[in-house]
């Protein structure tokens, strides 16, 4: 027994030695900025004023800032609408390319293209699509004679919102599809054969077999997409600039705007809120399913 004890302690020390580099990088690259932001949020850190500790005043000011609540509302709405769309479409895509058919490898590879395009680039592409005077969307309306006047897609709150959801869905559905495809292909084929023998219909097989088996992976897909969607910045910056009238300002754009105008404390406080929201949503998801097994 004592010998074994010694060995396991030695193992532990070894393990720590092996993990030290990655722990070091993670703490240097993740924890330091996070803690720095947290610390900054407790200061009045405005470039032209003396730096001063003000406790939670930045947070109080946020609570009284209608623009902050608006951006929070927008961000949640964006997550609530875009993530389910992306995961559902991703599931459809995954189920299609999970079947055997000619050129399946090629189709799988092309699915990934939108995801491989940098965000700022696809943002510009969609800007060209939704442009009022020369955009492809208005061109199609004109060609098919659907509307006599061009539509100002980004001009109304709902239009700008929808345009952002469409852009985001185009870009990230493949991401959800890839995660779900991995989950689908790990479901043993025998289960389906068994189900067929038991005369389970296609719909029954989907709801009774595929979905439950896929649950942990679905949760991972939802988790990743939610965290990314919470941080939505690039498309908004390129497509709407937060407009019209500030209606599409996400929380990260809100924080960025304050950084950019020299108020680091207020911007940090908004970032901390965003961080806390992402944290609690992740915890919620992880608690909601037996994810630990798959992770």
């Amino acid at each position, binding site marked *: 027994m004592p010998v074994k004890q010694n060995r396991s302690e030695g193992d532990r020390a070894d393990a720590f030695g092996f993990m030290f*580099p990655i722990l070091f990088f993670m703490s*240097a690259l993740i924890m330091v900025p996070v803690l720095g932001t947290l610390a900054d949020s407790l200061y*009045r850190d*405005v*470039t*032209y*004023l003396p730096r*001063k500790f003000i406790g939670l*005043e930045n947070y109080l*000011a946020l609570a*009284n*800032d*209608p*623009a902050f609540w608006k951006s929070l509302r927008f961000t949640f709405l964006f997550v609530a609408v875009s993530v389910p769309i992306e995961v559902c479409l991703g599931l459809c895509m995954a189920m299609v390319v999970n079947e055997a058919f000619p050129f399946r490898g090629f189709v799988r590879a092309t699915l990934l293209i939108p995801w491989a395009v940098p965000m700022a680039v696809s943002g510009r592409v969609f800007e060209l699509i939704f*442009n*009022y*005077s020369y955009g492809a969307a208005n061109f199609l309306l004109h060609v098919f004679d659907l509307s006599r006047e061009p539509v*100002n897609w*980004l*001009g*109304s*709150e709902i239009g*700008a919102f929808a345009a952002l959801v469409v852009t985001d869905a185009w870009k990230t559905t493949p991401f959800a599809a890839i995660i779900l495809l991995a989950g689908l292909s790990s479901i043993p084929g025998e289960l389906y054969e068994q189900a067929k023998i038991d005369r389970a219909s296609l719909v029954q097989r989907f709801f009774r077999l595929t979905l439950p088996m896929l649950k942990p992976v679905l949760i991972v897909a939802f988790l990743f997409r939610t965290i990314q969607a919470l941080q939505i910045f690039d498309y908004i910056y390129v497509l*709407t*600039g*937060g*407009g*019209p*009238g*500030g*209606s599409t*300002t996400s929380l990260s754009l809100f924080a960025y*705007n*304050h*950084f*950019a*105008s*020299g*108020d*680091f404390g*207020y911007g940090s406080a908004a970032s901390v809120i965003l961080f806390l929201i992402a944290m609690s949503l992740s915890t919620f998801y992880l608690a909601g399913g037996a994810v630990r097994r798959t992770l």
Partner: protein
Amino acid sequence: MTHGGSLYELGLRCWLVFLLCVLSPCCEGGEPGRVVFSVGGAPNELDAWEELVKDFEKESGVSVELLRQPSDSAQQRQGLIVSLNGKLRNPDVFLMDVAWVGLFAHSEWLEPLRNIDPSPYFERVIEDVDTFRGELIALPVYMDGGLLYFRRDLLDAYEVGDFPSTWEELVSVSSKVQAKKREVEPGFYGFVWQGAQYEGLVCNFLEFAGSQGGFLFRDAQVILDTAENRRALHLMHDLIWKHGISPPNTYTEMREEQARTYFQEGQALFERNWPYAWKLHQADGSRVKGRVDIAPLPAPATGKSMSTLGGWHIGVSRFSDAKENSLKFVKYVASYEGQKKMILRLGWNPGRRDLYEDQDLLREMPFLKKLAVIFLNARSRPVIPYYTQVSDVSQRWINAVLADRVEPHKALQNAEEEIAALLERYTTK
């Protein structure tokens, strides 16, 4: 050597490289006395700077490094704010948009420019923008002001008289010409200007409002909800929604370049833009070449035309490790000869007033005479440290009015409240 040994070595090397990367910002600096000059802009502008820097190096023996910045001015500001907030020794010299000078000065980032005589510059600009606590802290390199571009040929063809001097005239002339022109060109609009949610919108608003006697900031107070400002907002809103002479994408897409290309495609009668558009409108391949003219922006019958002051100012960082040489460089850039070189190459409008009478320049750019008059009356945006925040809030609410989402009165009230809350945060000791 064993396989494991070489792997170990590789790991060690990576580790060293990483350490170097992490630690290098702590020992930045480089050659002593070398001036690092941060400047952004279009490629041709950067080339012109490169050439000017070479001339200066030859003349003075001081070496200058050009730090190229993105052409987007918000990104340039962000980059400078981060370096200066971190008190970095570089860049030593940089260009600032006129709208940031207040923030930079109040942050005490700017070294006073001693032994420079500002008398050859526009007095109002030096006083309003470049003087801080009694000292000269920056110099204008390049001037800008809002102008009205108009299609001389269309005014003549439809016999609607000369360019409009009041907003009412602009609306009536636009409606007339637009109605007739649309028979052949369905996408034609009377008046294009900058209405998207960005800094340019505030510049436009100050012109609409300023000509009505309105303002953004007076006696150290932000007062927005005034009768004049409401009138200005109603006018801006109605140009799009009531008179229909400004396109619906005015408040979503119209920035300088969108307005310029719209006008240059021959799709608009009037355009509000900065002087840079002149050269492009008159270039080969432009559909409006030889048909354009410029005038001061309109005003109400009882008001006075107003132009928002724009432009770029040069300054020296207080954290610079080469102040002596930096000052030499600034003097050179701001000198008569230095500015003349840049202007001849780029067609810019000089920051020095005396260059508006230079015969060589007037031969190349005869419209400088008209511009000098407009710049004399141009008004700067409020030179306050928190201008960017005031502008952000104003942009959002003005844009909401243009999007037909809020009444002008309500929007101005909301903006005023938000700004008051902001100021309170900054003034509590």
